[in-house]
C-alpha cells in the first residue's frame, strides 16, 4: 500500500533524516544546505504573513504583464545564482586542499559539479536573459505586451517547476552525478539507478518546453507586434539579439527535449537508445545533446552582446557604430551555431576530415564576433564615456576579458590542439572565461541599466561599482590559473589529485572563488541598500541615462499598458531623435481606451502540476505523475472554454497619467551626464554636446 502511494520515496530519502540517524561530514555539508530549504521556506511564509504580502504575491504570480513576468524570472535567477555560487566556492575550496584527498567525497563532488553546471546554465543564465528580454523587448519595439501573454506565464510556470525539482533534490534524495551534459555512460540505469538522473531529466525536460514556448512567443512578438514605422533595420540591437536567441530556442531546444525523453525511456521502460548492449548507441545522445548544446552557447551570449551594444552607444552618448554589420554578425552567428556542435567531442572517434570541417566552421564564428568587438570599440571611440557608472565597468571588463576567452576558444577550435587539452581545466577556464565576462557581465549590466524601468528607481552606483570590480577581479584570480593547470595536465571534474605541482595555482584559484562569493554578497547588498534608499534614487520621468531607444520614452515604473499612445518611429534611435527635435514630451491630443488581458491562474496551475509530474516520475509515484499530467490536460481544455477576460483602462485615466508625466517632464530642468549618478537625476536627461 505504502509502496504504491510513495513509490520508492522513503523516510531515509530525506537528507536531514539520514544525517540524524547516521551522521558524517559529507552529509553534514549536504544537510546544512538541505536544511536551508525548509528553513528558508518557513522564513518566507512567516515574512509574507508578517508583511501581509500574500495577495500582492498572488497578483504577481498570476500576472500576464511582460514586465512583471520578466522581474519574476530575474528574481528566480538570483535565488538560483546563490546556490550556484555556493557550490562553486565549495568545489574550489575542496580542490585547493585536495592534494591526496580533500574534504569532499567523490560522489558529493560529482553532484556538486553536476548541479552547478545544470543550475547555472538552465536556471540562472537562461531565465536571467529571458527575464531581461521580457522586460525590455516589448518596450523597445513599442508594443503593449508580447504576442501571447498567457503562454508567457506558462513558460514561467514550467521554468519554475524545473527550478523546484533541482532545488528539492537537495533535500529529498540526490541530484545526478553525470555532469551537466549527463552522458548515458554515467547516467544509464545500469550505472546510476537512483533518483538523481531522473531529477535532471524532469527538471530539464520541463524547463526546456518552457524555453521553446518562450522562443516562439518572442519570435512572433518581434515579427508581428512592432509599432508603426519600426522596420527591421530600425530595431534596437538588443531586440535583434533577442530575435536571434528566439530563433535558436525554437530550433535548438527540441534536440534537448528529445534527448531527455529518450534517456527517460531507457531508464523507465528499458528501451535501448543509448545502452551499451542490444543495439543502443551512446554517441546518439552525445550528438543530440550538443546539437542543442552548441546553439545554447549562443542563446546565452547573443542577448549579452545585445546589452553591450545598447550600453556602448548609450554610455558613450553616440550612435552605435556599424549597426548593419552588428546585425549581420548576430544573424551569422545564429546560423553558424548549428554547424559546429561536433567540436565538443573532437576526440570521440570521427575521421580527421569531419573534425577538420567542424574545426573550420568553429573558427569562422570568430569573424562575426570580431566584427562586433571592433564595432563596440569604434562606438566608444571619441564618445563621452561615463566611467563612473556601473554598466560601463562591466562593459570594459567584458571587452578585455571576453576577448581573452574568445582567443582560448580559437585554440580549442583546432582539433589537433584540442586533443592535447580536451577534458582538462583549460576547457573549464575557457568556458567560464566566455560565460562570466560575457553572459554574466551582460546580465548584471543589463539589470543595472534597466532596473529603473522595472522598479522606478536606480541601483546605487557606489555598491554597484564595487560589485562589478569584485566580479572582474574574482574572475581573473579564479579562472586564469586554470589555463596553466590545464596545460599541466590537470583534468576537469577531479575531486582530488596527487601531483603537488598543482597546489600553488589551485590555492590562488580557491582564493579567487572567495572573491566571487564576496561579489555575490555585494550584489545582494547593492539591491538591499538601493531598496532602503529608494526615495533618493527615484527616476519618475523614466530616462535616467539619456537613452536612445523607445523603452526610455515611458515613465518609471512603466504603466501596465506601456505606452499611453503607441509611438510612431521614423528613424533608428527614435527617442533620441525626438529629444533632439525637442518634442519628446509634447502634449498629445487624442487618447483611447486601452484593453489589456486580465490576470490568469493558467500558468501558475500548469507550473504546480509540472512540479507534481516531475516529482511523481522521479519517485515512481505513478498516481501523482499520471494525475498531474491528466490534470494539466484538463486545465488546458477548461481554459479553452473560459471566456477571455480583459481589463479596459478608460481613455480619461490614461490621459490623466500621461499628461501628468509629460507636464512633469517639460517642467523639470533635468540633469547632464555629470550629475546622472546623483540624487538630482529624476529621469530627465539634458543632452551633452558630444563631438562626432
Amino acid at each position, binding site marked *: 500500500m505504502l509502496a504504491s502511494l510513495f513509490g520508492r520515496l522513503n523516510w531515509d530519502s530525506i537528507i536531514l533524516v539520514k544525517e540524524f540517524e547516521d551522521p558524517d561530514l559529507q552529509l553534514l555539508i549536504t544537510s546544512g544546505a538541505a536544511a536551508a530549504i525548509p528553513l528558508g521556506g518557513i522564513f518566507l511564509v512567516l515574512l509574507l504573513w508578517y508583511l501581509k504580502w500574500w495577495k500582492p504575491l498572488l497578483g504577481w504570480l498570476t500576472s500576464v504583464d511582460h514586465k512583471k513576468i520578466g522581474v519574476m524570472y530575474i528574481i528566480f535567477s538570483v535565488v538560483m545564482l546563490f546556490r550556484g555560487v555556493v557550490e562553486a566556492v565549495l568545489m574550489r575550496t575542496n580542490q585547493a586542499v585536495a592534494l591526496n584527498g580533500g574534504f569532499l567525497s567523490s560522489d558529493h563532488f560529482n553532484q556538486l559539479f553536476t548541479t552547478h553546471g545544470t543550475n547555472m546554465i538552465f536556471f540562472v543564465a537562461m531565465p536571467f536573459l529571458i527575464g531581461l528580454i521580457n522586460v525590455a523587448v516589448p518596450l523597445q519595439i513599442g508594443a503593449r505586451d508580447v504576442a501571447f501573454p498567457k503562454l508567457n506565464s506558462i513558460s514561467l510556470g514550467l521554468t519554475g517547476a524545473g527550478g523546484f525539482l533541482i532545488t528539492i533534490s537537495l533535500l529529498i534524495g540526490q541530484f545526478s552525478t553525470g555532469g551537466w551534459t549527463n552522458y548515458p555512460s554515467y547516467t544509464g540505469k545500469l550505472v546510476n539507478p537512483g533518483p538523481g538522473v531522473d531529477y535532471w531529466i524532469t527538471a530539464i525536460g520541463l524547463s526546456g518546453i518552457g524555453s521553446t514556448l518562450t522562443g516562439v512567443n518572442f519570435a512572433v512578438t518581434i515579427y508581428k507586434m512592432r509599432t508603426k514605422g519600426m522596420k527591421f533595420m530600425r530595431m534596437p540591437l538588443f531586440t535583434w539579439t533577442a530575435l536571434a536567441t528566439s530563433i535558436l530556442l525554437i530550433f535548438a531546444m527540441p534536440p534537448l527535449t528529445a534527448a531527455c525523453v529518450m534517456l527517460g525511456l531507457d531508464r523507465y521502460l528499458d528501451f535501448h537508445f543509448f545502452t551499451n548492449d542490444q543495439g543502443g*548507441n551512446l554517441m546518439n545522445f552525445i550528438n543530440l545533446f550538443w546539437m542543442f548544446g552548441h546553439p545554447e552557447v549562443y542563446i546565452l551570449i547573443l542577448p549579452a552582446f545585445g546589452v553591450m551594444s545598447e550600453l556602448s552607444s548609450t554610455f558613450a552618448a553616440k550612435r552605435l557604430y556599424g549597426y548593419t554589420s552588428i546585425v549581420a554578425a548576430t544573424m551569422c552567428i545564429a546560423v553558424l551555431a548549428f554547424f559546429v556542435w561536433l567540436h565538443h567531442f573532437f576526440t570521440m572517434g570521427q575521421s580527421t576530415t569531419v573534425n577538420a570541417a567542424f574545426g573550420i566552421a568553429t573558427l569562422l564564428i570568430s569573424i562575426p564576433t570580431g566584427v562586433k568587438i571592433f564595432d563596440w570599440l569604434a562606438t566608444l571611440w571619441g564618445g563621452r564615456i561615463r566611467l563612473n557608472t556601473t554598466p560601463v565597468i562591466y562593459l570594459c571588463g567584458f571587452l578585455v576579458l571576453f576577448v581573452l576567452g574568445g582567443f582560448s576558444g580559437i585554440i580549442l577550435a583546432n582539433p589537433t590542439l584540442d586533443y592535447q587539452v580536451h577534458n582538462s581545466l583549460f576547457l573549464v577556464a575557457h568556458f567560464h572565461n566566455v560565460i562570466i565576462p560575457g553572459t554574466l557581465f551582460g546580465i548584471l549590466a543589463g539589470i543595472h541599466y534597466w532596473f529603473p524601468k522595472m522598479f522606478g528607481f536606480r541601483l546605487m552606483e557606489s555598491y554597484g561599482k564595487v560589485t562589478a570590480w569584485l566580479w572582474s577581479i574574482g574572475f581573473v584570480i579564479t579562472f586564469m590559473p586554470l589555463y596553466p593547470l590545464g596545460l599541466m595536465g590537470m583534468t576537469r571534474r577531479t575531486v582530488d589529485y596527487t601531483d603537488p605541482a598543482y597546489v600553488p595555482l589551485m590555492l590562488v584559484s580557491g582564493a579567487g572563488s572567495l572573491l566571487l562569493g564576496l561579489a555575490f554578497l555585494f550584489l545582494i547588498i547593492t539591491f538591499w541598500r538601493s531598496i532602503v534608499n529608494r526615495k533618493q534614487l527615484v527616476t519618475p520621468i523614466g530616462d535616467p541615462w539619456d537613452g536612445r531607444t523607445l523603452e526610455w520614452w515611458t515613465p518609471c515604473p512603466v504603466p501596465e499598458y506601456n505606452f499611453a499612445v503607441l509611438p510612431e518611429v521614423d528613424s533608428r534611435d527614435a527617442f533620441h531623435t525626438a529629444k533632439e527635435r525637442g518634442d519628446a514630451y509634447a502634449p498629445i491630443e487624442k487618447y483611447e481606451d486601452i484593453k489589456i488581458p486580465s490576470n490568469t491562474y493558467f500558468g501558475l496551475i500548469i507550473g504546480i502540476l509540472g512540479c507534481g509530474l516531475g516529482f511523481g516520475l522521479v519517485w515512481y509515484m505513478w498516481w501523482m505523475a499520471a494525475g498531474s499530467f491528466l490534470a494539466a490536460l484538463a486545465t488546458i481544455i477548461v481554459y479553452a472554454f473560459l471566456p477571455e477576460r480583459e481589463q479596459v483602462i478608460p481613455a480619461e485615466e490614461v490621459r490623466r497619467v500621461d499628461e501628468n508625466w509629460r507636464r512633469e517632464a517639460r517642467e523639470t530642468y533635468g540633469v547632464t551626464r555629470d550629475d546622472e549618478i546623483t540624487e538630482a537625476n529624476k529621469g530627465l536627461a539634458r543632452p551633452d554636446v558630444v563631438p562626432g
Partner: protein
Amino acid sequence: MMSNPTPESLHPGLNLGEEHGEDHLEAETSVFGFWVFVMSDLVTFGMFFAIFAASSAPMWMAGGPGPKDFVDIGSIAWQTGFLLASSLTSGMAVLSLKERHAGEGASRGRLIFWLLLTAVLGFGFLYREIADFVSMAQMGAGPTRSGYLTAFWSLVGLHGAHVTAGLLWCLTIVVGVLVRGVDKRWKLALLRWAVFWHFLDVIWIGLFTFVFLGGLI
C-alpha cells in the same frame, strides 16, 4: 492585444467574417505563431528520424526482428488511406467556415459533420496502428528488444501520440462549437488545428516512405 495592424500584417488565409475584419487581425498572430511552433515540433520529429536512420543497420537490430519480419504493408496502406482521407475532410471542415453565415445552424452542422468524419478516420488510423503495435509485441518485436526497435517504436509512437492529441483537440473544437457557437476563438482554434493535422500527414508521408517502404526494400 494588437499592435498597429498594417495591410501587410493581415492573415492571408480565409475570410473569417463578412469581410477582413477584426477576427482577421488576431488570426495573423495566432496562426503564424502556431506555424512557428510546428517548425519547432518538426525538429523534434527530425531528431527521432535521425536516430531511426542511425539505428537501421543490422548491427543495431542485435539479432532481433527487422522490418521484413513485422511490417504489415496492408495495414500500413489502410493507415495511410485513413490519414490522407482525414486530411481532406479536415480541409472540408475549414472550408465550411467560408460559408456566408458560418455562425448559424446549417453550416455549423456542416462544420461539425466534417470534424466528426475527420475524427472517425483518425480513430480508424489509431486503431490499425495500435493493432500493429500489439501484434509486434506478441511476436517478440517490442521496443525493448533492440536499438532498432526502440527507434522504430519511438518514432512511430511519437506520431501516434501527436495524432491522439490532434483527435482530442478536434473533439474539443466540436464541443466548443456546439456550446459557444462558431465564434472568433473557435475559428482560430480550427485554423491552428488544421495546420497541425496536415502537418501530421506530412510526417506520415515521411514515415511511410523511410520507415515502412524503406524498411521493406
